[in-house]
């Protein structure tokens, strides 16, 4: 089945979650997906964790769903498997998520990366939704998140043909924040996550929530949501500390209150 481990780097406010199922190329079986959702849920509730890096290590992110398991599943069994609930739990995480992708991020692996807030990749990264080649369709957000992130036509080019996209094309499409050498992938992603974690935690969560609303709300409603978040932040201690620190030319000490 493989394992999902969490390494909390408390000094930086960052947790690194590593999927390790090398025998199945990190295929997201129901069991592995459940472990992943459990681990990330736990970190989401940890007040010391302000950003999460999700990785499969320097060689491979996740090569998709466990196709052997899928082959044996009836529609009813799939619906009862809890996979959809796992994806919903992952989508409901409030802590900023940085995907660190090397090698294949295909099918469910690609959907997992697209569920993150930022994607840092090795130059070896390959993204794709090959489900149609198996007579299936993406079922964990692939069609929707590709379209929202890269536009409908770019999404169709990937989802309808099953072709893959390398790290550079993915960056051109707006999916990738930064490309780094594979050997430096996790540390570079941790550095990006730490730069998020160093900011006011309430503000980061509010800003993240507002950015995500861009995918869900009409513009007027999303702008109103953004204004509401600003009003909330104006009532926080963190915003007073942030402005004082700027004026006093020192690093802020945010308390998340």
């Amino acid at each position, binding site marked *: 089945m493989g394992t999902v481990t969490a390494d909390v780097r408390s000094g930086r406010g960052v947790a690194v979650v590593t999927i390790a199922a090398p025998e199945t190329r990190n295929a997201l079986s129901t069991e592995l997906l459940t472990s992943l959702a459990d681990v990330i849920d736990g970190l989401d509730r940890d007040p010391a964790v302000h950003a999460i890096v999700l990785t499969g290590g320097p060689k491979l992110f996740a090569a998709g769903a466990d196709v052997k398991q899928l082959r044996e599943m009836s529609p009813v069994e799939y619906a009862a498997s809890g996979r959809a609930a796992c994806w919903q739990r992952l989508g409901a995480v409030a802590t900023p998520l940085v995907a660190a992708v090397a090698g294949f991020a295909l099918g469910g692996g690609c959907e997992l990366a697209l569920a993150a807030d930022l994607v840092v990749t090795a*130059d070896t990264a390959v993204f794709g939704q090959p489900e149609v080649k198996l007579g299936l369709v993406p079922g964990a957000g692939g069609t929707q998140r590709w379209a929202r992130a890269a536009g409908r036509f770019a999404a169709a080019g990937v989802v309808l043909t099953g072709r893959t996209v390398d790290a550079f094309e993915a960056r051109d499409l707006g999916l990738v924040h930064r*490309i780094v*050498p594979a050997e430096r992938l996790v540390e*570079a992603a941790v550095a990006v996550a730490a730069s998020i974690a160093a900011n006011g935690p309430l503000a980061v969560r509010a800003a993240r929530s507002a950015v995500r609303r861009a995918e869900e709300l009409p513009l007027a409603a999303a702008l109103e949501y953004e204004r509401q978040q600003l009003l909330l932040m104006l009532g926080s201690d963190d915003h007073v500390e942030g402005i004082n620190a700027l004026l006093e030319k020192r690093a802020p000490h945010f308390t998340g209150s």
Partner: protein
Amino acid sequence: MGFSRLVLEDWSSAPSALVEARGVRFGDGAIKFLRRLEAVPSVVVVGGECDASALALLASATLGFVTDDVTVSVDVDSALALGLTSTLPAAIGGATARALLFGGPADATAVRRSGLAIDGDPEEAAARLAEPAAALLLRSLRVAAHSTRDQARQYDDELRQLR
């Protein structure tokens, strides 16, 4: 010697590759071969009567050499199949690329003048490319070809951590 002489099946973990090719002709597998060649520090030595594949081979190599008897004739089909209209201008500039594509059969002097081939000892060059630092530089060049200056600099900052 720190480099390896490779056959097509023998690419794994070689520090550098020395490819000797005479009478190069376009065929199945050429594109895949060239892509793999781009990813390793490589020296290519081309000789004899070749089609446009010789130019693609030299452009894909880290360092290219030609023997004095080389002649390269460009045919449209293989030039298009190999993507030479994009890779050659990127490698040697648009004007020089056009001179090679439209100038008729190119001899060793013309290929060397274009910059696709250099003078010197290929085996010494391959030994230099077998140094770990050469692999880092090649990675940097490959990424830079697809990146803005700032993106390339960020990548290089991370590469320097590997030294």
